[in-house]
């Protein structure tokens, strides 16, 4: 029996899209289900910084009329999506960019609309160092992670089935993991960044937060592909939406045994070992991997490159807003000589080629997203140590569930793939989802 009413919020994007396509649910019914859920939990979770219900209902009605006449725009017709405030939405301000409304949609929003998605609103992120009010739907005393805080919380609390995020250090996968849902940071350049507020030319990745790998593959197929207005985009066409799991065989998994275990708390390390055992029992070849010693400089590379680029991007804001204080990090980054920045980029080039050699032995590397579950308190969005290397190298990474911590918070595992092997990595992630099982929605 098709889901109706409040049950709609528990469907995946794939199921929602099929329900709309089959006439089992209208975009309006889907929108109303999510608006009702938002009314139920938002005051506690605080994921949304912008939500205009009248606009959502008006756009849902248009999508419903189109669906009734079978004029589907694309594979996401009627699917609601939450957008991190970092992305420009026409007619709405982007808090990082100032109070004036943006005049154009970001490219990703343009592509989502073309695919028929219903833009629900914008989600919280830290702004100029001020933490958002967003709380973790699994425990409201804990952070939802960040900086894609509201996106992670919105999907975690089932206020949206999927959301856009962004990752420069660890900002997309961490909130996904902390809120108990799936996340994708694709290969650098996979998705256009036009209309996305920038933090680092070399490290900014558009990311997706969703319920399943299949959902994120569907989103990626609509979002990815070259953009002539973003020269960093890959020339390759978007990966297919269909992960073709019928052809999937148990993957080769490499558990990283150096650099990361020293930062991993015991419950998280136990989750990694348990996941490795379960995947092995399901037919996967699981091996230990030690990354080359020179990998250890990657965090230094990221600090220098992101720091200098971040200051470069911020310098106009500082000049135009005398009251905006330069952070200590910005002050010091502004002093890094150009030669040291270029050298860091040379080291990044070297490591990008060197580290990917490991994928000759394995299909994906396994580690955690964070040292542990979401920390208590809202003054920090958590630790980026496990995520920075893959943001710096531009390799694709996903998060899958590692179960719950002793205090019932999600433990997020990370699978990392070879550059440009986004589709292959999502197949590994989907296979892992089947073995490790997804978490249910939290009780709010």
């Amino acid at each position, binding site marked *: 029996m098709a889901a109706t009413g409040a049950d709609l919020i528990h469907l995946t994007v794939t199921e929602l899209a099929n329900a709309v396509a089959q006439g089992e649910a209208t975009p309006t019914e889907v929108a109303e289900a999510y608006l009702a859920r938002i009314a139920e939990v938002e005051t506690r979770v605080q994921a949304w910084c912008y939500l205009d219900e009248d606009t959502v209902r008006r756009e849902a009605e248009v999508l419903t009329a189109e669906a009734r006449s079978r004029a589907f725009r694309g594979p996401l017709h009627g699917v609601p999506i939450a957008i991190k405030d970092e992305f420009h939405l026409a007619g709405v301000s982007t808090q990082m960019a100032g109070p004036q409304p943006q005049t154009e949609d970001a490219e990703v929003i343009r592509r989502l609309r073309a695919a028929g998605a219903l833009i629900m609103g914008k989600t919280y992120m830290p702004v100029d160092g001020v933490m958002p009010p967003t709380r973790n739907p699994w425990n409201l005393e804990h952070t939802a992670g960040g900086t894609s805080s509201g996106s992670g919380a919105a999907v975690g609390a089932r206020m949206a089935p999927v959301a856009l995020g962004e990752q420069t250090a660890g900002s997309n996968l961490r909130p996904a993991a902390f809120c108990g849902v799936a996340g994708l940071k694709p290969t650098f350049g996979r998705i256009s960044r036009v209309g996305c507020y920038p933090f680092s030319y070399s490290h900014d990745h558009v990311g997706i937060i969703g319920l399943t790998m299949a959902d994120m593959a569907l989103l990626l197929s609509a979002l990815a592909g070259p953009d002539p207005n973003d020269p960093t985009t890959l020339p390759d066409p978007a990966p297919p939406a269909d992960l073709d799991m019928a052809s999937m065989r148990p993957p080769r998994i490499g558990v990283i045994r150096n650099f990361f275990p020293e930062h991993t708390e015991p419950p998280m390390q136990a989750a990694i070992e348990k996941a490795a055992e379960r995947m092995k029992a399901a037919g996967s070849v699981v091996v230990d991997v030690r990354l080359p010693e020179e990998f250890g400089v990657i965090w*230094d590379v990221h600090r220098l490159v992101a720091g200098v680029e971040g200051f470069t991007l911020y310098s106009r804001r500082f000049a135009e807003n005398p009251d905006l204080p*330069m952070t200590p990090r910005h002050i*010091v980054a502004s002093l890094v000589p150009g030669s040291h920045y270029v050298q*860091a980029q040379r*080291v990044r080039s070297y490591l990008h080629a060197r580290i990917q050699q490991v994928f000759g032995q394995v299909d994906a590397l396994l580690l955690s997203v964070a040292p542990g579950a979401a920390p208590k308190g809202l003054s920090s969005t958590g630790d980026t140590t496990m995520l920075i290397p893959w943001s710096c190298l531009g390799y694709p990474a996903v998060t899958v569930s590692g179960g719950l911590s002793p205090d019932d918070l999600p433990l997020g595992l990370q699978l990392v793939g070879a550059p440009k092997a986004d589709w292959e990595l999502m197949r590994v992630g989907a296979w892992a989802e089947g073995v490790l099982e997804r978490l249910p929605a939290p009780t709010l």
Partner: protein
Amino acid sequence: MRLHPAVTRDEVLKWLSEEAERLAPGAPRSELESALSEFAQSMAAVSAIVLPDTLEPRFP
């Protein structure tokens, strides 16, 4: 600040501290110390890596 021969953390920290004092004389030193130390460590680590002369930087 030289790049080669590799700089030490202490050399960089001294240089960065002096430059930071010139740039932001009013900034509380206690707030800067962590950033100065981290960037000094990173600059020293990166300058110590030996790379082939022909290796191009990886810009986006």
